[in-house]
């Protein structure tokens, strides 16, 4: 079984209202050193019966086609053996 970790975040150029709100909250809690917060989504995807190459290709496809919207988001994949 292969397991992939997929991190989906808003592109750097895209304003992140949730991240901004969390940042404001942290500052009001006294964490004055926090200069920015960007939030995103995290997926653990388990796959059966695929070679590591096939698993990577499948997760790439899923991440680009379904888990993220290329207009506003980018993704990063970590594959665990």
């Amino acid at each position, binding site marked *: 079984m292969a397991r992939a970790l997929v991190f989906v975040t808003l592109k750097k*150029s*895209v*304003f*992140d*209202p*949730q991240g901004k709100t969390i940042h404001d909250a942290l500052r009001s809690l006294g964490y004055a050193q926090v200069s920015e917060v960007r939030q995103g989504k995290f997926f653990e995807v388990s796959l059966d019966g695929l070679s590591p190459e096939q698993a990577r290709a499948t997760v790439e496809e899923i991440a680009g086609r*379904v*888990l993220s919207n290329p*207009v506003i988001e980018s993704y990063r994949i970590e594959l665990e053996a």
Partner: protein
Amino acid sequence: MNKATIGVVTFPGSNSDHDAYHVVKHVCGQDARFVWHKDDDLSGLDAVIVPGGFSYGDYLRTGAIARFSPVMRAVAEFAKKGGPVLGICNGFQILQEAGLLPGAMLRNRAVKFASLPVHVRVENDATVATAGIPRGTVLTMPIAHGEGNFYCEPEELHRLEGEGRVVFRYCTRAGEVTEEANVNGSLASIAGICNASGNVVALMPHPERASEPELGSTDGRRVMEALIRSAVPALA
């Protein structure tokens, strides 16, 4: 006299489909037909409405799953042939995910679900949803969304503005486009856009919830009637 037959797509989680059906059929006196998301047969329809709601729960991302529905392939085909398509709220998000309209919706600037009447100014009167409504007209309709903060890349915005494809902008009651009136933080106060040929239009406000006096505004009926006139030009 012929009536228009308007299809209203229903996804699991749609909640404005019945409102749209009701307005088409009982307020505007046309024929309406629900189209289940697994159907891909739009034959006999003069226009299609992709209504508001929370398709598939919007758990992953608004409209992300709905765009893979069989009906959306049919809607894309229908649009390609020039058929009038109106997306409302979640329908807007679905049409974006499906690539029929550009851009995407971010969380509202204030990170709150916004449910209130808003004013929008008609910017383009040559689309299937605004034909016959003069540019500059201010319409009052409710919004109900958490992700309506329109975003696209600067080049895309430039194209939209250059081609006159911004159809509605949030504005004050007097029709001024201001930051305060930009209820969700949308880029360029965009509340609605269209495709290059103007036959696919979508907006975040709900015209179908502002089509009867009991609901506080009948401005939305003008949008619904524009769609009907575009669907069957003989009715105009």
